[in-house]
């Protein structure tokens, strides 16, 4: 079961971010977020692919559901998506806290 813990923690954290977005009505979820995910995740997957192939970093095959060549873990796209959502929620949250129009459009 240890191979599923990483994926589960990512999904759990994502659920937490979703909750925060709802609780504070940040309204991060929308077409803008989808675009941010659609553009950012592939770019970083490419960086990861190059990095994994060159040996910059490595994922442990025993702690991951599966590893795709050249060494990208199954969880990587989930992690990247989560990070983009987190970025946008933090950006909007910071805007809200500062009372500036930064978080709102």
């Amino acid at each position, binding site marked *: 079961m240890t191979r599923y813990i*990483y994926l589960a923690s990512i999904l759990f954290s994502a659920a937490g971010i979703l909750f925060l977005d709802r609780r504070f009505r940040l309204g991060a979820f929308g077409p803008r977020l989808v*675009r941010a995910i659609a553009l950012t995740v592939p770019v970083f997957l490419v960086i990861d692919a190059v990095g994994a192939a060159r040996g910059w970093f490595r994922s442990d095959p025993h702690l991951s559901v599966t590893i795709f060549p*050249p060494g990208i873990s199954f969880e990587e796209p989930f992690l990247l998506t989560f990070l983009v959502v987190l970025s946008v929620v933090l950006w909007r949250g910071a805007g809200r806290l500062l009372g500036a129009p930064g978080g709102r459009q």
Partner: protein
Amino acid sequence: MEYTLAASAAVLVGVSLAGLHGLLARRAYWYGLAAFAALTVVSDSVLVSNGIFTFGGRFISGIRIGPMPIEDLLYGAALYSLAVTVHEWNWNALRKLSELFRASRPFSWVNTALPCLACGIAVGRPTAALIAGTVYFLAPYNLLLYGANDAFDYESDRRNPRKNGAVEGGLVPPDRRALLWSAIAVTNIPFLAFLAWLGGPVAGIALAATAAVALVYSVPPLRTKEVPGLDALTSSLHFVLPCATGALLAGAAIGAMPWRYLVAFLLWGAASQALGAIQDVKFDREAGIGSIAVSLGARPTALASVILYSGAAAIVAGAGGPALVAAAALLPYPLLAASCLAGDAELQARRAWKGFLGMNLFSGFLITQVLLRAWGVGRVTGLELIAWGSAAGVFTLLAIFATNRLRMRRRATTVGWERISVIVPAHNEEANIAACLRSLPRDVEVIVVDDGSTDRTMSAAARTLGPLGRVVPAGQRPDGWTGKCWAAWRGAMLASREILVFLDADTELGDKALEAAAAEVARGGGLISFLTRYDMSTFAERAVMPAFALMQVALWPLTLLPLAYGPFMVARRTEYMELGGHRTIRGSDQEDVDLARLFAHAGRPVRMLHGADLGSTRHYRSARQVAAAWRRMYYAYSGHSLAIALAGIAGLAMVFLVPACAFVAAWIAEDQPALLGAAVGLIGLLVLRGAVAISERQPLATIAWHPITWAATLWAMGLSVADGLRGRRPVWRGTELAGQPQ
């Protein structure tokens, strides 16, 4: 230090992009970045100290914050900056970019990227150079290839009826050429240099050759697309060279290159280009454009195509072993080309081209299987493949459902009721018609046409409508007409207002339905129909009917085809009359579909929209009727084609039943990855069923009946195919329907 450099570069790019959008001046950006960095330090440390990630010592600087290397912080900052920048982007100002995106023909990306990747993996290793090369052959290369075409052939493409508006035609108008060329330069030159550095000198030369061949096709003075023979060769090289380059990027030596297959691919591509050119021969001649088919003539070109195709198959077969399967997959192509040798070559070529596109799916599948075996992907069990395949299918459907719900949002416009005529053809609808008519607003014109009912439909309709509407008998039906068409046409002749609504008597509309319908048709004309929700009351119906709603989701891509949904259709009267309406399709037993084809052939828009919120249709009164309806319709709706009907059944079973079966099988076989795939599929299915149930206002409890729903539905569909093969006429509500129109 490589990772250090890459991460620093990424941060630089990310922060400059944010700066370009004025984000650096906003405090929220920095606060968010600080919070993101803090969270990164914590979570990354947890990941690294648990060994989920490890780092290659010579690639990092060695500076760490706790267990986390500093590079990960830079990586995170780059991701945050890019995400927030894209989120804040003003997309309207970037319309031009989307034009460039389309100019690179996203549909064709896979045709160049896949050969590169597949060939690279087949003969080498998945090196960084190969991955980067695959990315290059996705977008930048296609922008170069098709962008150069657009720059020089925009005008002639526009005039070619086959290419105009199609994926093949020119997309970037002349006034944006400067932007086009700079986009080509910016995406290609640095990328090619980077690839040459990664892949070494031989790969660098191959890349340069590939780019040059992409250019000479349309750029004068060479312009090989107009040089007979060279046109087929260069356009084939556009796909063969990425393939060869992939092998080099993957580290294959020149001697270890798969020459045999590259030559076969080259011949196959040239043959295909020649086949395609035959279709355009008349146009090219008129436009004064040279091509292999123009100079050789249609029939000799077809002969050349046959020879080249046969050569490709023979060369592949020469390798023996598993390659024989691939060679077999190539055998239909020479036959396809040979069909152009007899009769009107151009007409045959158009037909053959369609066959070619279909054949590619089949051959591609077979050859992929051979390749997978050759690469030893046999380690993936069949069960895992099935489980993950069905999960992918379920999530594709979920995505389709979500995007369509978003796209189908109708704009609220008001069109006066006094402009609408509602025509209700009715045949033995005593039980339904009162509810149908009561759901209509007072100010519309209502015409009920009684199509030879033997019950009290007419009196029920007259009682409900009172003096406000008209109830007329359809009268003697002329030969060659089906009842429904005759009744609808009679109603349309009597209607006096500008918008015609054809409404089935078993359909009840909501308050907003007619306004929404009229507003849609007012926006651009054509034939608009709405998928009303299914009204269900008995338990058995609830068990079986949801399959209809899910089918609609599954078949949403079909809404791009000219299809209409009979119970609730809307059109402008002038347009309907001009095309002859139901009179033109008078013998049809699927009048909605044929009406849609009629409109589509005349170049009018045909749209089938989501309408579960607009009204409900009570088609059937028992599960028996539901099953009978599946049996009646399915084979006819698959166009009386056995292949399509069986593929449809297999596809639906794969998506709707297989996740459950695979779950049980994986449980028994203790196949962990398959179990995970099946579970993912089941969760997706649950979400999909829930979403559809809510939008169709079905009780959520029906989800539990899913296996019964689909077992019964697939069984009825199987019966439908069997009936069709035996040539049995479809029977509906006790009357045998007229034969196929055609």
